[in-house]
């Protein structure tokens, strides 16, 4: 259990609660803080006592004309209801969950939130990369040799020929929007790729597959991706370099 000093600091804390409503992340956070005053394990907490403390808090806030957010008031109403259920003898005719079940659940929620806070603190206290342990500072680049192998089957060949010999010369006029890769698309795509841009790599290698063979599609994809990486460089997300005029444009993720 947390060791809070007795007396004065307790009263100060209680007063601070009144003034500093903004310091709490919602009613559950406030309830967890209030529960500490009971100085018992969260498993043995008195929900009735907690409900009374919370309701007293809300009352005092009202006296001081502090505007409480709706969710604090919802919690207050629910705790008032729970309190009355806990104090009255159970009504055998009434359906729904028992007051004890509701109280148990609230205690469990508080215990779970406290457990997550403890785990979060423990996690941040671990040896962290870039703070306590370090990766290689000067990683060596791996040279990639790209080679393309084209495949086609006999059936593809025969179908192609069959299609040619029965070709319908007529083609209705349509806009060929399918060959256009917009900058928005490119930006969206490169943003997803960001995690993979560790080392320097040619922008050309990052063009989407299916957009790198056909000239029109390649031009459109190249232009949109170029514009996209300029934008990303401007935002400080990546580095760009070009060894010489008309040389390949290389990109990598900014450290």
């Amino acid at each position: 259990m947390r060791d809070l000093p007795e007396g004065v600091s307790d009263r100060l804390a209680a007063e601070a609660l009144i003034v500093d409503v903004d310091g709490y992340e919602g009613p559950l956070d406030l309830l967890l803080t209030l529960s500490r005053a009971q100085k018992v394990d969260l498993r043995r907490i008195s929900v009735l006592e907690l409900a009374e403390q919370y309701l007293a808090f809300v009352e005092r806030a009202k006296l001081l004309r502090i505007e409480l957010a709706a969710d604090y008031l919802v919690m207050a109403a629910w705790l008032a209801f729970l309190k009355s259920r806990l104090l009255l003898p159970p009504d055998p005719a009434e359906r729904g969950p028992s007051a004890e079940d509701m109280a148990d659940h609230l205690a469990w929620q508080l215990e779970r939130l406290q457990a997550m806070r403890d785990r979060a603190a423990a996690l941040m206290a671990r040896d962290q990369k870039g703070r306590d342990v370090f990766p290689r500072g000067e990683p060596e680049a791996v040279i990639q040799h790209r080679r393309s192998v084209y495949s086609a089957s006999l059936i593809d060949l025969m179908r192609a020929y069959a299609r040619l010999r029965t070709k319908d010369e007529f083609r209705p006029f349509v806009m060929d929007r399918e060959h256009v890769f917009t900058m928005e698309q490119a930006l969206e795509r490169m943003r997803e790729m960001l995690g993979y841009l560790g080392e320097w790599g040619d922008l050309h290698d990052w063009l989407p597959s299916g957009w790198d063979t056909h000239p029109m599609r390649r031009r459109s994809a190249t232009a949109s991706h170029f514009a996209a990486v300029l934008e990303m460089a401007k935002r400080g997300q990546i580095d760009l370099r070009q060894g010489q005029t008309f040389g390949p444009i290389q990109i990598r993720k900014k450290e």
Partner: protein
Amino acid sequence: MTAPIPPTLDEQERMVEAMLFASAAPMGLAELGARMPVGSDPARAVAALQRRYEGRGVRVVRVNEAWAFRTAPDLAFLMQRDVVETRRLSRAAIETLAIVAYHQPVTRAEIEEIRGVAVSRGTLDQLLEMEWIRLGRRRMTPGRPVTFIVTEQFLDQFGLETARDLPGLKELREAGLLDSRPAPGGPATPEGEPPDDQAQWTED
């Protein structure tokens, strides 16, 4: 054509040493094996390498199914100058990260239920952008909500071998604190969204 003789284990260890040294990111056994001569056994080579570096200034650490060299934590004081100032995470972000790690796969509604407040869009965005969390599979419940899980970068960041090695995971589970319990008629969930607890069972 006869099969080439695979290199000795010592040679293989040297190769793995060179490759892991050259890479800042952890490398998987498949990735290592793909670059090594036919007949190599990267798993054995990594194990031998790891033993060799025990107690040294750098160590071979495991990150999920991959391996990397990292400096020994007790020498952190020497590297303080290399520390990259990272953005300070808000308390909301830290708690959300812990909840994703311990409850994964977890939906946004579930995170909100545990914290008792709405999760702001920026919090999840920040964690996604840092690549500490990512989207998991959608829940097979009404609305098919997305789930969040932690990434390999997260494990790398906090020096965890696997997500199962999270400290205190077993205790939390035994204490029932990782269960999802439906609220018995309380104001348990914000915005009245029902926790979709059964999902974990139907999915896995």
